[in-house]
């Protein structure tokens, strides 16, 4: 697809999302927000996974940190949502910097195990530190305050208003990550994935780039977590559990981890398919597991990658 084609697709998607915001019912609105939040999580994650080639099993910790950041700042500081989101992102990024500092010393399976260990440390802290995090009950009943911008206030209590805040952050994320992938930084990350030894010989500090990718993806996870807290108004330690870290991996894999729009498409399929399947059975995870098996065994490009290949082949 050429460049203009991509712009047209992006424009159509944006128009459709705005349309959903104005005209659809509560349920579709809620689903669309869930899709966008998961997309932010997965696209940010994919900077590390698809781009840099590092498989992390600890990103749920940053997601949860974002959520707890918003909740705690709403409870103790001020209920301004933008302040909360900023706190959430900063907290997640700092945590990612600390954890990443240790984790990027290893690659492959040891990296995965290290991120798993650190993620579970965060999980157990949230689980046990009852005075601050509410223990296994988590924090709940967090109200969405209105966004006051000096002279005027934007109320976001209603879902139909909050939707546009989510859409705003979603669009910013897509643009930012697109920029990152086009930038020299993004190209170095791809170089590390393809051949880290050569990248090192080219005079680039591979570890520092890995750490940077780790922190950036952690910050996006924090943003996703913050938004999810504002949407659901509660958070429990299970947001940080390792099995939740698998979500962005699976979504990226399903959509196509080597493509830009893969995590996006994966998120749509993940959320929508889940709703559809759960209408009929309660065994969503079973079907999801089977789909994953099929993708790993047969369609490793994911949905986007495999479709692109098919199109290319038919064009010949």
């Amino acid at each position: 697809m050429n460049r203009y084609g991509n712009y047209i697709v992006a424009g159509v998607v944006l128009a459709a999302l705005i349309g959903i915001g104005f005209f659809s019912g509560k349920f579709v609105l809620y689903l669309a927000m869930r899709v966008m939040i998961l997309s932010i999580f997965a696209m940010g994650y994919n900077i590390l996974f698809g781009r840099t080639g590092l498989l992390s099993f600890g990103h749920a910790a940053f997601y949860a940190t974002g959520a707890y950041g918003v909740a705690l700042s709403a409870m103790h500081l001020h209920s301004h949502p933008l302040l909360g989101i900023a706190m959430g992102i900063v907290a997640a990024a700092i945590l990612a910097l600390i954890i990443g500092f240790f984790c990027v010393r290893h690659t492959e399976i040891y990296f995965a195990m290290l991120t798993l260990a650190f993620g579970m440390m965060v999980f157990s802290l949230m689980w046990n530190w009852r005075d601050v995090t509410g223990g296994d009950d988590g924090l709940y009943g967090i109200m969405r305050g209105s966004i006051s911008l000096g002279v005027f206030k934007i109320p976001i209590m209603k879902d139909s208003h909050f939707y546009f805040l989510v859409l705003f952050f979603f669009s910013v994320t897509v643009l930012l990550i697109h920029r990152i992938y086009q930038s020299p930084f993004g190209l170095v990350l791809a170089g590390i994935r393809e051949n880290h030894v050569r990248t090192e010989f080219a005079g680039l500090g591979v570890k520092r780039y890995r750490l940077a990718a780790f922190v950036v993806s952690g910050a996006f996870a924090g943003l996703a977590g913050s938004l999810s807290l504002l949407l659901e108004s509660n958070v429990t330690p299970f947001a940080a559990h390792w099995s939740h870290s698998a979500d962005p991996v699976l979504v990226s894999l399903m959509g196509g981890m080597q493509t830009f729009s893969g995590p996006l498409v994966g998120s749509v399929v993940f959320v929508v398919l889940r709703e559809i399947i759960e209408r009929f059975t309660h065994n969503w995870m079973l079907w999801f597991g089977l789909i994953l098996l099929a993708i790993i065994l047969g369609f490793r490009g994911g949905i986007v990658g495999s479709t692109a290949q098919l199109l290319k082949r038919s064009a010949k």
Partner: protein
Amino acid sequence: MMESLVHVCLAGISAGMFIWLVASGLTLIFGVLRVLNFAHGSFYMLGAYLCYTCLRYLGVNFWLGVIVGPLGICLVGFLIERYLLRQVYDLELPYQLLLTFSIVLICDELVKMIWGAGSIGSPTVPGLSGSVQIVGRNFAVYNLFIMVVGPLVAIALWALLERTWWGRIIRAAASDREMAAAIGVRVPGLYTGVFVFGAWLSALGGALAVPYIGLLTTGMGEAIIINAFVVVVIGGLGSLKGAFLGALFIGLLNSFGTRFIPTLDMFLTFILMGVVLLWRPQGFFSGVDQ
């Protein structure tokens, strides 16, 4: 105080033995196949559920359940290795990990569909029910039995690997796959065999855990696999001796942790895992045996 210390120790050791049974299979499979198997906890869970089914619905003796349950899992392991895992040996690490992870999802849901959450009071284990007095407190005879079984399995594994022809073949394939194939070892078949054997060990742990835990849930697989991961990391991926000592250590650490510093429950385990990975990523016993 003294009595309570002894009992905390005993509880830790018996809990550690279940982790050992899962970790032994996990580390054996990693040592030979180079695949870290997320689904290993599912084998443990399935072993427990199959044993439970034998007790509850077929009304057989507990020991028969312990034999039949794990054998059923051998079949599951065989199918998984032959038809799924074999396709991804040459692919990158994420595909292997995620393949085993999707098996976890499928197993969890299948168990939920078939069994729901199974509750079993305490099935009578012929000859091993009741408790004995140890330094002034009651201790279940069954737990003592587990503390004997664990080391026995360890000794049997050691003898198998170090003293038999089969063990030599397995060690050869573990240290150099191509060389082993060149001297005539049928490596694909061996891989299947090792995977099935590892699955059996884990399922044996699950079946033996039935009288121990009392309530079977789909979370039990995930709970034990995470402990087994910690154990094989501490002991060194691929090392059986490391897995045994690591399991004992983690069992005791959990037991003492929940007794004396309950606020740091779990946290200690993962701190330990992180520190070992950073300081000695090869673990404490790698290279001693393979």
